[in-house]
């Protein structure tokens, strides 16, 4: 029977149905759990990126605000409908006054697309905090752009230097990971990941050019 023409086809079909069925059932059963977790992680990240400004405005402790999630998220963070911007936008509000903005931004890395969250001051010129949400870079090399030392370089950085120029951001020079920056325009790159490090700055510059101009029009 095993040598007949039809048996291998029928056998393969049965195997495919069994395994695809198992995977489909497993996925359906886990789908809600996975989506809930992803939303939870995303909201925590948005809160964490704006928590410094919220703490300044409320005189509360940063860790107390973070520990109070999800109540603190519901209290201070609101999603904003920015039609035409095509980027998820959030604001941190304390007593009806906006203290920070947070945008989901996208760019290209070495191996695929990247997603990040960047929070800005209310004039959209200074980065408050920055985090990589999704990336497909080489583990141990490019993927190290998620490490805190790399992201910390962008914190509290005046990113929009010339609001009236064609490119509103300024250019940066990369130095080796082991070097100490001597000038404001120097950023440390991840060893062995020059293209990925460049891509992060390119993503920020492109997105800031777009977001800054859009938000100026949006507010007026």
């Amino acid at each position, binding site marked *: 029977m*095993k*040598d007949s023409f039809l*048996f*291998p086809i029928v*056998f*393969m079909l049965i*195997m*495919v149905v069994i*395994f695809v069925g*198992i*995977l489909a059932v*497993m*996925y359906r*059963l*886990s789908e809600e*759990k*996975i989506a809930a*977790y992803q939303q939870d*992680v995303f909201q925590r990240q948005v809160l964490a990126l704006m928590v410094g400004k919220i703490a300044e405005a409320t005189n509360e402790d940063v860790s107390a605000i973070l520990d109070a999630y999800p109540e603190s998220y519901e209290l201070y963070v609101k999603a904003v409908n920015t039609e035409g911007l095509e980027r998820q936008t959030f604001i941190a509000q304390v007593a009806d006054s906006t203290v920070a903005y947070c945008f989901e931004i996208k760019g290209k890395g070495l191996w695929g697309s990247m997603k990040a969250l960047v929070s800005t001051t209310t004039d959209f010129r200074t980065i408050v905090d920055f985090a990589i949400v999704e990336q*497909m870079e*080489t*583990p*141990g*090399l490019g*993927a190290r752009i998620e490490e805190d030392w790399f992201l910390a370089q962008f914190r509290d950085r005046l990113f929009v230097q010339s609001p009236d120029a064609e490119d509103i951001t300024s250019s940066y020079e990369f130095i080796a990971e*082991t070097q100490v920056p001597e000038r404001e325009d120097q950023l440390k790159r991840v*060893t*062995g990941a020059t293209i990925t490090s460049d891509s992060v700055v390119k993503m920020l510059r492109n997105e800031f050019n777009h977001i800054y101009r859009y938000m100026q029009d949006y507010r007026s």
Partner: protein
Amino acid sequence: MKLKDIFITSAFTENSVWRQILGICSALAVTNLMKNSLIMGLGVIFTLAFANLTISFIRNWTPRSVRMMVQTLVIASYVIIVDIFLKANMPEISKQLGPYVGLIITNCILMGRAEAFASQNKPLDSFIDGIGAGVGYTLVLLVISFIRELFGFGSIFGIQVMGDWWTPWSIMVMAPSAFFILAMLIWHINTRFYKAKV
């Protein structure tokens, strides 16, 4: 053959990396950090063991003409099962694993053991063979990553062991270092334990 002998043969005597030169691509790709190597190794052990077990269970009904397609289907399914399970129940570990879970499918040790052992032996023997081959592979990854992480980052499992005086060797972080460390490891083991002629 006793189960213990199957394990020792699979993990050491006929190790997939240094005797059969399989799984080289991933051995080069993931060995710049010990944590990455351990995670990849654990994923491979689990998938190898259960893929071998399943392939052995159905070996008497599997037609020869489609056996490799069936093996690929079984291996890919286990990898996806691991991925979904981790995402739903251990999301933190899933995030740390990142793309490694998907990379397990491309590891040729899995097809190698399925074809060479599981398709011809009993389920329990195949299960132990899978664990042994996975352990042998993980050991090699850990040895290479120990050298690369120590000299490349000055750390072991992310814990800094070299002081400020240490200048990291950038070459160790990059892929070429894995090539020559793996080559030296294979050369040393084969000449020392297998009396291979250079």
